[in-house]
C-alpha cells in the first residue's frame, strides 16, 4: 500500500503489544451483523503514471466567462510560495507556538481586506461570496432583530439563492428583491426608497451581476435609513479602481476574493471575505486572528474571540463555520503583496479598458450592450443560444448565458474581459459572430 505499510517485523511488534494475532482482530468491537461482507466495488490500485494519463483536462482556447469566478494572471511567486508544504499540510492554527506562519499571513490578509473595503475589521475568510452574504444577513438579523432582507435583483443569482436557502429556517423572515432599471440595470432608486423599512437590512452588489457600476453615493443616502446595509463585491479586482464601499457608510462588505491569486478551478475553492465596522466586529462569524504577545514579550498572533464559536458556545455560536479557506486567503495575501498598489490598480484598469475595447469591436457588428450604464469589466449583449453553442464548438466561451437566471432578458450573455484576454482574442470572438 503506497502510504501506510509497516515491515513484517514491525507489524508483529505492533500486534504483540496490542495483544492480537491478526490485523483484522482490531475490528472485533464492531458487531458482526454490520461488518461488511464483500470488498468495496470501486476501481483502484493505480500507479502514478497510469492515473496521470487517465486524468487529462483540456482548457478552452478562448474564454470570456466570469460572473463571480474570474481568470486573472497569477504571479509566479504565488504558486511557488503557496505550495510550501509548511503552509499546505498544516491544520487550523490552534497551537499558536508552531503556527505563526499561518496566523501572521491571515492577519496580513485581514489587514488588506479591511483596507481595500474601507472597513474596520475582516475575518479570516468564508467558503465563498454567497455564504459570506448569507452569514452577513444572519449577523444582521441576530444583532438588530430584523424581519426583512432586501437585496437587489441585479445581485449574483447564486448568492441570492444561497441566501434564500440559509434563511429558509429563520422564522418570519421575508426576502424582498429590489428591481433594477430596465435601461441601465442599476438599482431602481424609487422602488428602493419605497421598500426600505425600519426593520430591514439591505444588500447591493457592486459592480452588479451585469458588470454595471451602481451609484453607491445615491444608494447610500437612501440605505442609511435602514438599521443595516451591506455591499457585496463579487469581483475583488474592482476594489483597485472603484472607491471602497466603506467610504459610503456600509455596515458590512462581503463577497468573493477568488480573483486575488486563486484560479477558477472549475468553480472552487473560492474565497469568501467578510469585513465590517467596529460596531459589528465582535458579532462576526468565522475565524479571526488577533495580534498579541508571547511570554517573552515578543509579537505573536493567535486565533481570537473563540467565545463566539462552536467549541464553547455550541448551539448559541455566531455561526456553524469552523474553518476558513486558509490556503486561498494565504494566496490572496501573496498575490496582493506581489502586485502592490500600482499593480492592483493597473490590473483593474486593464480589465476595464479591455472590456471597453471588446464592447467597441462588437458595436461595429451592431451588437451593443443591453444596458446603457457604465460597467467595470463585464457587460451583457444579445446572443442567442445557437450562436453561443457554435462559438463553444470553435473553442470560444463567449460568457455566461443569462436565460436560466433572468428570463426577462432572453437570449443574452454576460461577457467578461480580464487582463488575460488579448486583443487577438477579442477580435477572434467578433470574427466568429
Amino acid at each position, binding site marked *: 500500500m*503506497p502510504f501506510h505499510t*509497516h515491515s513484517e517485523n514491525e507489524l508483529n511488534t505492533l500486534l504483540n*503489544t496490542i495483544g492480537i494475532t491478526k490485523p483484522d482482530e*482490531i475490528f472485533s468491537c464492531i458487531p458482526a451483523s*454490520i461488518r461488511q461482507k464483500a470488498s*468495496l*466495488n*470501486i*476501481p*483502484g490500485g493505480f500507479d502514478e503514471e497510469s492515473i496521470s494519463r487517465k486524468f487529462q483536462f483540456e482548457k478552452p482556447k478562448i474564454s470570456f466567462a*466570469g460572473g463571480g*469566478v474570474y*481568470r486573472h494572471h497569477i*504571479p509566479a511567486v504565488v504558486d511557488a*510560495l503557496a505550495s510550501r508544504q509548511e*503552509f*499546505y*499540510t498544516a*491544520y487550523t492554527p490552534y*497551537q499558536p507556538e508552531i*503556527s505563526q506562519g*499561518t496566523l501572521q499571513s491571515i*492577519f*496580513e490578509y485581514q489587514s488588506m481586506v479591511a*483596507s481595500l473595503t474601507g472597513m474596520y*475589521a475582516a475575518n479570516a475568510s468564508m*467558503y465563498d461570496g454567497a*455564504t459570506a452574504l448569507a452569514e452577513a444577513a444572519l449577523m444582521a438579523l441576530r444583532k438588530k432583530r430584523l424581519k426583512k432582507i432586501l437585496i437587489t435583483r441585479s445581485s449574483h443569482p447564486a448568492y441570492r*439563492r*444561497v441566501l*434564500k*436557502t440559509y434563511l*429558509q*429556517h429563520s422564522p418570519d423572515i421575508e426576502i424582498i428583491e429590489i428591481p433594477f432599471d430596465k435601461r441601465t440595470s442599476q438599482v431602481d432608486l424609487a422602488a428602493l426608497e419605497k421598500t426600505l423599512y425600519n426593520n430591514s437590512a439591505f444588500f447591493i452588489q457592486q459592480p452588479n451581476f451585469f458588470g454595471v457600476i451602481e451609484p453607491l453615493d445615491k444608494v447610500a443616502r437612501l440605505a442609511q435609513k435602514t438599521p443595516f446595509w451591506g455591499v457585496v463585491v463579487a469581483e475583488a479586482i474592482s*476594489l483597485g479602481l472603484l472607491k471602497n464601499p466603506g467610504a459610503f457608510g456600509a455596515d458590512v462588505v462581503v463577497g468573493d476574493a477568488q480573483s486575488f491569486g486563486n*484560479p477558477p*478551478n*472549475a*468553480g472552487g*475553492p*473560492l474565497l469568501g471575505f467578510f469585513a465590517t465596522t467596529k460596531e459589528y466586529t465582535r458579532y462576526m462569524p468565522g475565524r479571526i486572528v*488577533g*495580534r*498579541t504577545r*508571547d*511570554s517573552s514579550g515578543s509579537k505573536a498572533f493567535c486565533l481570537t*474571540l473563540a467565545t463566539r464559536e*462552536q*467549541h464553547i458556545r455550541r448551539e448559541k455560536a455566531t455561526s*456553524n*463555520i469552523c474553518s476558513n*479557506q486558509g490556503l*486561498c486567503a494565504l494566496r490572496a495575501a501573496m498575490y496582493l503583496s*506581489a*502586485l*502592490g498598489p500600482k499593480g492592483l490598480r493597473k490590473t483593474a484598469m486593464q480589465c476595464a479598458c*479591455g472590456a471597453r475595447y471588446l464592447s*467597441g469591436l462588437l458595436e461595429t457588428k451592431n451588437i451593443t450592450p443591453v444596458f446603457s450604464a457604465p460597467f467595470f469589466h463585464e457587460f451583457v449583449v444579445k446572443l442567442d443560444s445557437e450562436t453561443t453553442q457554435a462559438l463553444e464548438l470553435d473553442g470560444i466561451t463567449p460568457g455566461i448565458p443569462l436565460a*436560466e437566471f433572468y428570463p426577462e432578458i432572453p437570449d443574452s450573455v454576460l461577457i467578461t474581459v480580464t*487582463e488575460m484576454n488579448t486583443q487577438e482574442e477579442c477580435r477572434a470572438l467578433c470574427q466568429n459572430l
Partner: protein
Amino acid sequence: MSKSVTHFPEIIEPVLNQISSDGKNTRNMPDPFDSAPLDDIDSSLLRKDLPEIPDISEVECVRHFTRLSRLNFGVDHGMYPLGSCTMKYNPKICEKIAVRIQSIHPADSICMQPILSSLHTLENCLKEICGMDACTLWPAAGAHGELTGMMIIKQALKTRGLARDKILIPDTAHGTNPASCAIAGFKTQNIPSGADGYLTAGSLKEHLDENVAGLMITNPNTLGIFEREIDKIAGMLHENGSFLYMDGANLNAIMGIAKPGDMGVDCMHVNLHKTFGTPHGGGGPGSGPVLVKHELEKYLPLPRIRQEKNGNFILRRDMPESIGTIHSTLGNSSVLIKALIYILLLGPEGLRHASTTACINANYLKARISGILDLPFTTPTLHEFVLSDKLQKKQNISTVEMAKALMDFGFHPPTVYFPLVVPGAIMIEPTETESFEELERFALALETIAEQVISDPDSMRHKPEGTPVKHVDEVWAARNLVLTWLMDESNT
C-alpha cells in the same frame, strides 16, 4: 532520549506594512489597451488614491512568506496526532493532477464534461464506501455538510407535514453539530453516554418523543469507540419517525470494514480533507460531501449531476423539493478531484488497509502510553483514543502543559480538552501514515514528559522552549482585539 530534538528558526518576521515603502514594487505590467478611456465612470465612484496595500519588492515578498512558512508545522514535518482531525499524509500526485483543472471556468461547458464525469465517479465511490444511495459534493467543509444534512432532514419533515424541531446529540459530539442544527432551525438536546463511553438504546429511549426529528451521531465516536448498538438505535429512531444523521469525521476507522448505510444511517457527511487525504491548508479549503438514502434524495441541494443517454453530463436544477443552492458554484471542485485521485490510488484493498493500519497504530500507542497517562475508558477503541491528565494533576500539571511540551520534541500536540466528557482530555489519532519509528518516538516523548512531570514539575510550566514564539497570551488578544495592522499602529 534528548530533551529537545527540534530547533525552529529564531526569526521574528516583520508584518508586511513594516517593510512597505512607496515605489518599491517595480513589477512589469502590460499597459491597458489604449483605445478605451474610462471617462464614462462618474469620478465620485472612483478611487482617488492608490489602494493601500504593501509596496514591496518581489524578493522581499518571497523572503517574507518563505520565512513565515518556517514558523509553521505541517504534517510533512512530522506526526500531527490531532484526534478526530485525521491529519494523514497528503499524496503529492493528487496535487499534480488537480492543477490541470485550474484554468477551467464552470461556464466553459465543453471543458467541464470530463470534470463532471470525474465528479460523478467520485459520487459513486463515496456512495459505495458509505453504503448510501445518493450524494452531493457541494458542501465546502464538514460543518457546511452538517448544515446541508440538517436542512435536508428539516425539508423531509416539512414535506410530511411534521413540525418536529428537536435533534438529539450525544455529549461526545463536535461543537459544530449543535451549531449547524441551530442554523437549520432545530433545537438540540444533549444525551449522556454511558460510563463505558457507549450511547445505549436505553438512554436514547428516555429522550425519544414525537418532537424528535433525529439523532446526530459520530461513529466511531470521539472517544474512538464504535457504537455497538447503532443498528438498534437506528431502528428505534425509524420506528419513531425520526432520522439518523452520522457525522463522518471518523470514517477513517471503518473504510471497507463497515458501511454507515448498513448501520441504518439516513444521512451523513464525509470530510474529504480528513479521510481522503486532501491537504488542510492551514484551515481550509476542506470539502464535506453529503450522502443520503433513497427517500431523502429529492431534497439534496442543487444542481445535481446527471448523465444523459448520449453519455454527456449535465447539471440539473429541476428538483422542486430540493433544499436549494448552498454554494456559488460547484463546491471546492479541485479538492474533489484530489479526493477522487486518492481513492483511485488506494482502491478497495488500499482503503481497507488504511483503516486497518490507522486502528492498529492508534491501539499500539494506546497500549504504550496508557499507564503513563490515565486512560478513562477501557472500552475497545478504533482509530483514536482519549487520555486524561488525572495522574499528572497530583503534581499540578495539566493537559495544556504536557501538550505544549510535546512541541519541543518535534510533534504537533494532540486535540486537547475535547471531548468534553473527559476532564483534561488528550485525544490522540496518529493515522495510518505514521511509521513505526515515528509512533515509537512519540511514545518516548510522552514517557519523557511524564517523567519530567514527577522529577521537575516547575520546568513544565514554561513550555514550549524551542518554538519561534513562547507561550502565547490569548487573553491579551481577546481583550485588546488588534485584528489589522491599522489597529496595531493606533495601538502602539
